């Protein structure tokens, strides 16, 4: 039972990170009706910039310097998201390009951003970049469950950020504007909501969430930041789809589902050898395909979203 509990705790903390990324997909989709494939690229650039700032400008020192580097990473990721939104997405939408065209454009962006961060990692001369986060490799035992400090931080910061986001969506004017836009773009526009600004805010938030996720994807127990870290953002796609692309609550539930499914299959993989080694890595996609077979709209999605 302790083992099961251990796996659940692991799963929830990983799930919180996936939920951060999935929320980015959902918020962008709600505000601008675009599914972005460049999210992994933004995540990779955010993570890489944290390392870069820490390595070049805020070397050594205490935790204060780490947080300064994080600020740099966040700012760069937000700026990058805004540039993407203004320069590419808005232009594509204003010439009423098809959604598929916009998606392929974001895939092209993803190729460029990830290639750039890969190039950065390669030219640093190291295999893995250590973001040098304050939690290190330490771990804490609670009731016989051993959890690494970074995981606890992921859970804590994830909870805070996600709660803040939900409250923001629910109570602030921006949040109301965003929900109105998601419900009916034309009506919202006629009511005086500026769709362009809503979309920019959404992209900025998504960029920030991705960067926070990058910190935890490269913290213990993961070995560090490398060229593949950005690719992990693809794993949050199942989280967003399982929950339903237009539902923030769904993204949270989807993220947790995926995280727990992954950590359970990883924990019990010695009992699941018939599925092959490393099956846990593809579990998110298996769950997504299974959900799509039964419910093409996801668990919390509205019907119109994924059906004709």
């Amino acid at each position: 039972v302790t083992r099961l509990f251990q796996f659940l705790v692991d799963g929830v903390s990983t799930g919180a990170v996936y939920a951060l990324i999935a929320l980015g997909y959902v918020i962008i989709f709600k505000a601008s009706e675009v599914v972005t494939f460049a999210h992994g690229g933004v995540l990779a650039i955010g993570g890489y910039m944290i390392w870069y700032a820490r390595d070049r400008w805020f070397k050594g020192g205490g935790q204060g310097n780490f947080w300064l580097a994080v600020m740099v990473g966040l700012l760069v990721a937000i700026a990058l998201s805004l540039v993407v939104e203004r320069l590419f997405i808005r232009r594509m939408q204003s010439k009423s390009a098809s959604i598929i065209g916009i998606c392929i454009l974001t895939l092209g962006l993803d190729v460029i951003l990830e290639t750039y961060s890969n190039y950065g990692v390669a030219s640093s001369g190291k295999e893995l970049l250590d973001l040098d986060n304050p939690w290190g490799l330490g771990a804490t035992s609670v009731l016989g469950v051993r959890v690494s400090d970074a995981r606890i931080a992921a859970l804590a910061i994830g909870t805070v950020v996600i709660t803040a986001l939900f409250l923001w969506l629910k109570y602030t004017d921006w949040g109301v504007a965003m929900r109105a836009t998601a419900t009916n773009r034309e009506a919202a526009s006629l009511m005086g909501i500026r769709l362009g600004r809503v979309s920019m805010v959404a992209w900025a938030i998504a960029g920030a969430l991705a960067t926070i996720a990058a910190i935890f994807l490269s913290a213990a127990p993961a070995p560090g930041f490398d060229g593949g870290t950005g690719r992990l953002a693809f794993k949050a796609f199942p989280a967003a789809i399982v929950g339903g692309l237009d539902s923030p609550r769904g993204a949270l539930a989807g993220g947790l589902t995926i995280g727990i499914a992954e950590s359970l299959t990883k924990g019990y993989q010695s009992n699941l050898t018939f599925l092959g080694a490393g099956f846990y890595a593809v579990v998110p996609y298996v769950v997504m395909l299974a959900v799509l077979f039964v419910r093409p709209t996801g668990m919390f999605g509205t019907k119109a979203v994924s059906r004709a």
Partner: protein
Amino acid sequence: VPDPRSKWPRYVGVAALYAVALYVPFGVEQRNWLTPLNLAMAAAVGAIGLNILLGFAGQLSLAHPFFVAVGAYGYSFFSSGYDPVTRGVAKSDRLSGVGLHPLLSTVVVLMLAAVLGALFSPIAGRVKGIYLGIASLGLVFLTDHLLQNVKRVSGGFNGRRVPVYDVGFTSIEKCRPKECIVNGVPFGQPEKLWYLLLAVVTLSFILARNMMRGRPGRALQALRDGETPASVMGVNLVRYRAAAFMVSAMFAAMSGVMYALANGNITPAEFGVDTSVAFLAMVVIGGLGSLGGSIVGALFVRILPDFITRHGEKIPFVAAADNPNGLKPLAMARFIYGGTVIVLLLFEDGGLAGLLRRARRAALRVRSSERRVVLVRGLAGQVDP
């Protein structure tokens, strides 16, 4: 100015293209390029298949590498151990194989891809556009997992060798010493394979074009441009979407067979997300809905890394092979084709085919305005119209 509406320039162009294509193995400088070119020809068939799905049906799929892998590994598995002398199974092969005739195994593999595509049809038929893109992402990651684990068929991480293709006059394997030199050029495997692949690409192109010009193509375009009008016209949305997915899966599998033959060995690394994106880039660069464009796009995307590797010293930012700090040719190629995709989508979403169409239209406009000038002058009594 030749009349831009005339079909003759097109016929002449195609004839010239084939003349060049037939000459390729004899071009001395081009011989180094033969294997990259063969790989590009293999990719071209896959790109044509993806274009059917993306350009005509308006469905995004990232699952293409899955079906390419089905083709490549399936072909190797089914034809491995085939002994052309006894026409039976040879015992020597290390990895398991079925020992079918290579042509028969190609047919079996295409059928297999069709069946797998059909199994995916509850999703491919019901899920629309980009959602299919995300769902199909799942298949790509499953591909890698399967290839790493079903070692008896795939050889795991290190992959497996592809059995040689040795059938009748199309055999690319051995040749008698006299036949091995044609026109002073040694005529070995890659040379023969080039002609074989050229034939397959031609056939696939004609097949796809006829399908897309006929009833199925029109139905797909109708449902791409508006589901409700299409279904009112009697197009069964679910069935046509599923069918488009199946057909594109078969093209992908054929591309896989060709890839296996051209590369000689196959590893799981070749069938990942990068390949999905590369296929999308081929289709977008060539032009959505332009099958000929897909071939050009495939050549561009596939040849680019080799081109940069060979001519790296002349291209800014690219590092020499011994410099670990510079930009690798593959990274440079990714920047270039990623950038090309973005620029084309922003400014000409018809891709290269769209640019060509624009040029033709401009030529037409020039010509008709010339005519108008002549006509006006004629009316004014300046010249005889």
